[in-house]
């Protein structure tokens, strides 16, 4: 891979250059200030460096469905965190064109004592939408979540399926430019899964860029055009989905 990546182009959605993420893991976990101070005085604060991502370059074009493959701990989540701006990389340049939908673990940020409606408002503002945008979307969110009269009841009275539906409805009410799918769609009953899949399809058709993180080679092969394979924080392979899937199969099955 060349170090001389061009500047991001007009049709670029995600542009990562020279991205490294170094976690400092303390030798022993020092979680309290008291312990830290004692160790600092004793000169015993030592860290092991751990490169979660190592000089990674990536260009994803608008409208692409891009797969990310890799074993547990290969750096997939770290890469998603960098793209969704949760994590500032230790080094390198992040360039993102458009709104990234993180697809929160469904219902994160919900509060049990608030009503469904209040939770919609809170959750949507957590996702960065303003009051006007939310007001416009409420009828659609309600229709999609299909909660009925429960919407004015506190969340603690909801079933887990209802919470999942509400969370998904809020998270996907706005078409993101870049959608991150981290194997979250396995909740809810069959009818709801169907609805989710449909919504994903409409996102794709409307030109959103999709990042799909999966363990399933079949999913990546069938849905993605291109993919990359991560191993120990390095990009092992980047190219067409079928090639990368094959390489991944080699890696895990040793064939």
């Amino acid at each position: 891979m060349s170090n001389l990546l061009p500047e991001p182009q007009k049709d670029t959605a995600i542009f990562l250059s020279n991205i490294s993420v170094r976690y400092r893991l303390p030798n022993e976990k020092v979680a309290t200030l008291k312990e830290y101070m004692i160790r600092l005085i004793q000169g015993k604060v030592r860290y092991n460096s751990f490169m979660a991502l190592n000089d990674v370059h990536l260009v994803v074009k608008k409208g692409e469905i891009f797969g990310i493959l890799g074993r547990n701990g290969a750096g997939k989540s770290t890469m998603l965190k960098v793209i969704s701006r949760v994590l500032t990389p230790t080094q390198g340049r992040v360039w993102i064109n458009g709104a990234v939908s993180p697809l929160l673990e469904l219902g994160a940020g919900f509060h049990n004592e608030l009503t469904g409606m209040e939770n919609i408002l809170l959750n949507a503002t957590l996702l960065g939408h303003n009051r006007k945008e939310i007001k416009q979307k409420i009828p659609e969110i309600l229709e999609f979540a299909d909660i009925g009269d429960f919407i004015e009841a506190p969340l603690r009275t909801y079933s887990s399926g209802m919470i999942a539906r509400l969370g998904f409805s809020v998270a996907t009410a706005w078409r993101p430019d870049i959608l991150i799918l981290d194997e979250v769609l396995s909740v809810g009953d069959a009818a709801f899964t169907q609805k989710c899949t449909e919504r994903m399809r409409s996102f794709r058709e409307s030109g959103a860029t999709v990042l799909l993180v999966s363990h399933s080679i079949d999913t990546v092969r069938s849905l993605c055009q291109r993919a990359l394979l991560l191993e120990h924080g390095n990009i092992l392979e980047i190219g067409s989905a079928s090639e990368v899937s094959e390489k991944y199969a080699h890696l895990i099955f040793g064939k």
Partner: protein
Amino acid sequence: MDNLSTPSRSTIYDSSKQRNSAIEELRSIFQYRDLIFQLIRRDLVTRYKRSVLGILWTMLNPLGTMLILSVVFSQLFNMRGTYPAFIITNLIAWNFFSQTTVASLNAMLWGSSLFQRIYLPRTSFVVSAIGTGVVNTLLAMVPLVFIYWVTRSPLHATILFLPVSLFLLAAFSLGVSLILSTFVAFFPDVAEMYPIILTAWMYLTPIIYPEELLANIFNGWLLRLNPLFPVIKVFRIVIFDGKVPTLTEWGMAAGIALGTLLIGWIFFTQNSKSFAYHV
């Protein structure tokens, strides 16, 4: 199916074009102002929803403390008639400081799981904790006026300066909260330690006793070294003393409050990028 509109903010984020992180944070907190509003609303609603007396608690709490302290201390400090009014004024200011700083710490602990998943301005929770405190303090003005009326303590027109005093108190509390939150993000046990510090701080600040009491101890250095004191003082002066603070008094309070806020904001935003590294 449904018509999906494009998001209104089709913006390009480029890490190589990021400027000073303190200013960037200021910009994003403004963009997320509706979130701040929702967080304040959540805090108020969840606090009062499941209790019978609801919002009355905000008013009963300082009243109760004031009553106990009045019974115990009014003889001691020789301020018989005016002591209840004195104490409730100081308590409301102190409660603002202690409750907002504690709430900020808890919000940081709660929010750290969200920070791992989505991008939010890192100061959101602290700023909203201060906002909740402002609302609670305004509500607490009801029992304050009631006590002044019952004890026939005069309320002067200088109370019109209260917004200025409250603003300075809020700025100071925000600064302290930001510094504390930064520590808490790295060391969660700071949240355990803080209530102890807070108790000591309360007894070292003239809240339940008049400031003259400290003026004679260590040549008044306890007062001079306490950054909270000048800030709380202008709160007390405009309500209880019924005076307009002197220029020196305003200057001290404003200098300390805004200075603390500036230091806190810069300290927090310089470190907030590494919050996500501490799981």
